[in-house]
């Protein structure tokens, strides 16, 4: 009989949320991390602009408070965020940011030597702490350093293919070791999913190439509901064509958005906040300009940094300059940058409560793959890095507490070992390659394009119905896909698993969007342009059933703030 590798707490995902959870859990018991890449390669490193906390370090934000941060977050979410969760997020924000500073994050500084803060969308004054314009990189490396300090065992380049569940309780996972090509079985009392978002479902996305949403689909297949998946954030400013992110920090530092006539068109959409309105509003404004013929070459608008001057650009936004120079060969000190909106963040995710607990006992979710929900219908820039740390710590603690409680009971019984072995054998059959005529890349590309076109920034009933039909046709094609044999670093095999997940999640996104007959935050229905609190001030709960995806609704948790009209 095979012997699975046992850790009381097993974290899937080596980004900020996963590592923070593991570090916290390790205070109480052994904890290990399974990551599909080396942890520093995780998508967290791609975050640029910063992390929100009401530190009050900038003169304009001196009387900032967690309550104000909470209000901005809830208003930004178009009142769909659960306010108890937002309270936790904002109350703990300062402490988590200080902790990262104590651990060595090289934050940019104020003239007094305090952590520097810049304005971001939806706040109106500087609340976003930053390390130049590579804040995610700075934080991820710091947390990775702490994981090393705390001797956390990291199994890198492991792709988790299956969750093993018995009687609605997690008992382990089966993972493919990409380097040896061998399947590995792991047993655990607590499993924390921290696998990130699903941006690659969209052909135009700022997300890393690895963000297929596989972890979300693992939970979905295992019977956990998904929440609010139709809420996809489109970032206003991605580099034209490659969709590489250009931070909101550039607008925070004062950059303008210009249409083909050279107008600062945000005047028409958010006369007060202008370029610093929340992302959903700015993304729609850009898309509208392009649709109405005021885009440059009918494809993009311009981001103008020129008036900031070379010195400020070099000090605050050196990464933006470097990106422009390397990828489109232009210098933003002198030239306009072509930008277009692109999928950026998965607001929805695995349905869990404020402790990260899911419907499966012992299975937790945290970070972008989870939906607590603190972002609701639209996330504020700077709140996702914060979520990974606040909830990473919290979920690590709860996962460890559960593991400790379980370990007091009897040791692993034979039944668990049997079940893990069965699942191992089942998964082993799935990694043997496939003879078929369909090509993974072409299905993936078709899916990505249709999601941009029909389940994108603007949505309407007939297009969403078409999208669902097309997704279902692509899923049918996927049954006949070709996958080469071999398991050692077989990208085609991995992409096949990714695509399976993407197709499943695409259906959930499109169905959620079809059923939500209102416009709220990032979800904009041209046929229902108003928010409808009477019917839809509710979370979408999607469930995987033998008859397909079933949609239910659940009330939003409201504590302090009553819904109001969202004006910027």
């Amino acid at each position, binding site marked *: 009989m095979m012997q699975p590798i046992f850790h009381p707490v097993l974290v899937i995902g080596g980004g900020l949320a996963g590592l923070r959870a593991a570090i916290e859990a390790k205070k109480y018991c052994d904890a290990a991390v399974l990551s599909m890449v080396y942890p*520093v390669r995780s998508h967290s490193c*791609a975050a640029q602009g910063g992390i929100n906390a009401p530190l009050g370090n900038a003169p304009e934000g001196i009387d900032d408070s967690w309550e104000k941060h909470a209000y901005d977050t809830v208003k930004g979410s178009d009142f769909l965020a659960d306010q108890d969760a937002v309270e936790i997020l904002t109350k703990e924000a300062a402490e988590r940011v200080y902790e990262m500073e104590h651990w060595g994050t090289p934050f940019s500084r104020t003239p007094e*030597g305090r952590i520097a803060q810049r304005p971001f969308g939806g706040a109106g004054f500087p609340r976003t702490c930053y390390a130049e314009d590579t804040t995610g990189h700075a934080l991820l490396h710091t947390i990775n350093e702490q994981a090393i300090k705390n001797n956390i065992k990291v199994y890198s380049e492991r792709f988790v293919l299956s969750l093993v569940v018995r009687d609605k309780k997690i008992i382990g996972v089966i993972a493919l070791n990409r380097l040896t090509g061998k399947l590995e079985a792991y047993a655990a009392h607590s499993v924390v999913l921290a696998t990130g978002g699903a941006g690659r479902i969209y052909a135009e996305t700022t997300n890393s190439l690895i963000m297929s949403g596989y972890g979300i689909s693992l939970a979905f297949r295992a019977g956990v509901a998904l929440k609010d998946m139709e809420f996809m954030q489109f970032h206003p400013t991605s580099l034209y064509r*490659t969709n590489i992110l250009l931070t909101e920090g550039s607008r925070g530092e004062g950059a303008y958005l210009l249409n083909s006539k050279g107008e600062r068109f945000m005047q028409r959409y958010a006369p007060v906040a202008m370029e610093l309105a929340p992302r959903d509003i700015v993304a729609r404004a850009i898309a509208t300009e392009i649709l109405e013929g005021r885009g440059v070459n009918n494809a993009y608008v311009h981001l103008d940094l020129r008036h900031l001057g070379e010195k400020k650009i070099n000090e605050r936004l050196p990464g933006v300059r470097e990106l422009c120079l*390397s990828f489109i060969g232009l210098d933003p000190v002198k030239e306009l940058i072509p930008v277009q909106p692109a999928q950026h963040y998965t607001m929805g995710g695995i349905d869990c409560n404020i402790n990260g607990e899911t419907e499966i006992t012992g299975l937790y979710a945290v970070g972008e793959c989870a939906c607590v929900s603190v972002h609701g219908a639209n996330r504020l820039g700077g709140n996702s890095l914060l979520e990974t740390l606040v909830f990473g710590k919290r979920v690590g603690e709860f996962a460890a507490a559960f593991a400790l409680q379980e370990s007091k009971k009897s040791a692993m019984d034979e039944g668990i070992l049997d079940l893990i072995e069965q699942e191992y054998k089942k998964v082993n059959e799935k990694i043997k390659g496939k003879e078929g005529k369909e090509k993974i890349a072409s299905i993936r590309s078709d899916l990505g394009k249709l999601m941009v076109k029909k389940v994108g920034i603007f949505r309407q009933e007939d297009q969403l119905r078409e999208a669902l039909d097309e997704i279902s046709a692509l899923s049918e094609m996927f049954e006949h896909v070709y996958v*080469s044999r*071999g398991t*050692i670093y077989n990208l085609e095999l991995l992409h096949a698993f990714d695509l399976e997940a993407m197709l499943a999640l695409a259906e959930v996104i499109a169905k959620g969007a079809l059923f939500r007959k209102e416009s709220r935050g990032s979800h904009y229905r041209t046929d229902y342009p108003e928010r409808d609190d009477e019917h839809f001030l509710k979370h979408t709960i999607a469930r995987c059933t033998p008859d397909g995806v079933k949609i239910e609704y659940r009330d939003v948790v409201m504590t302090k703030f009553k819904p109001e009209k969202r004006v910027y």
Partner: protein
Amino acid sequence: MPENTINLKIFRFDPENAGLDTHYQTYTVKTEPGMTVLEALFDILDNQDGTLAFRYSCRWGICGSCAVSLNGKCRLACNTQVSDYSDTLTIEPLPGLDIIKDIVVDLEPFFENYRKIKPYLVPKGTPDKENIQMQEDVNLIEPHVKCILCAICEASCPVSWTSREKYIGPMALTKVYRFNRDTRDSGGKERLEIVGDETGVWRCRTIFRCTEYCPKKIPITEAIQFLKRRYFTD
């Protein structure tokens, strides 16, 4: 050959199906303006040969995944333009490391070097709020904090190629510099001890290839020289 194509001559090694056989395989890719080497690799994977293996993640030079050898020089595939090359571009694994498949190498020895030097801040104390640190102090470790652990410095260093087990390598030494010069750190002496012998700073022969190829433009050799001086003055 047509102007808008390039030949990619790629090192191939498949441990599962071909034993120890290695060879080069040439693919012709249609180029587009702005196309990166990583995009060209994906073009091959998606349209010509699904068995090709390479690493990737962010595709804009921040995650450090895609370092490879391009015409003998180590670079990130994602921020190198195909148009920098004409006719044939030879793509090989990073030198000096064991090969897992095709151009994917075993980075475990590289990360082992990293772990050796206590790569984390040893705090002087824990203030209630943040440590006060002046921007000039942050600038001391800028751009060293921008290291993406891509392994290009180590893979470009002839000393690392020839005496891997005897040299901790330029990345680990840069990390020592990064922490030792952080005004919030108090672990400097201990780290200097770790790298103060002939497997550490003294094995650097100031060849400057690490500095030349670092995609984040970190003055690595200069940092190592700084540590050498510190070893005597601290």
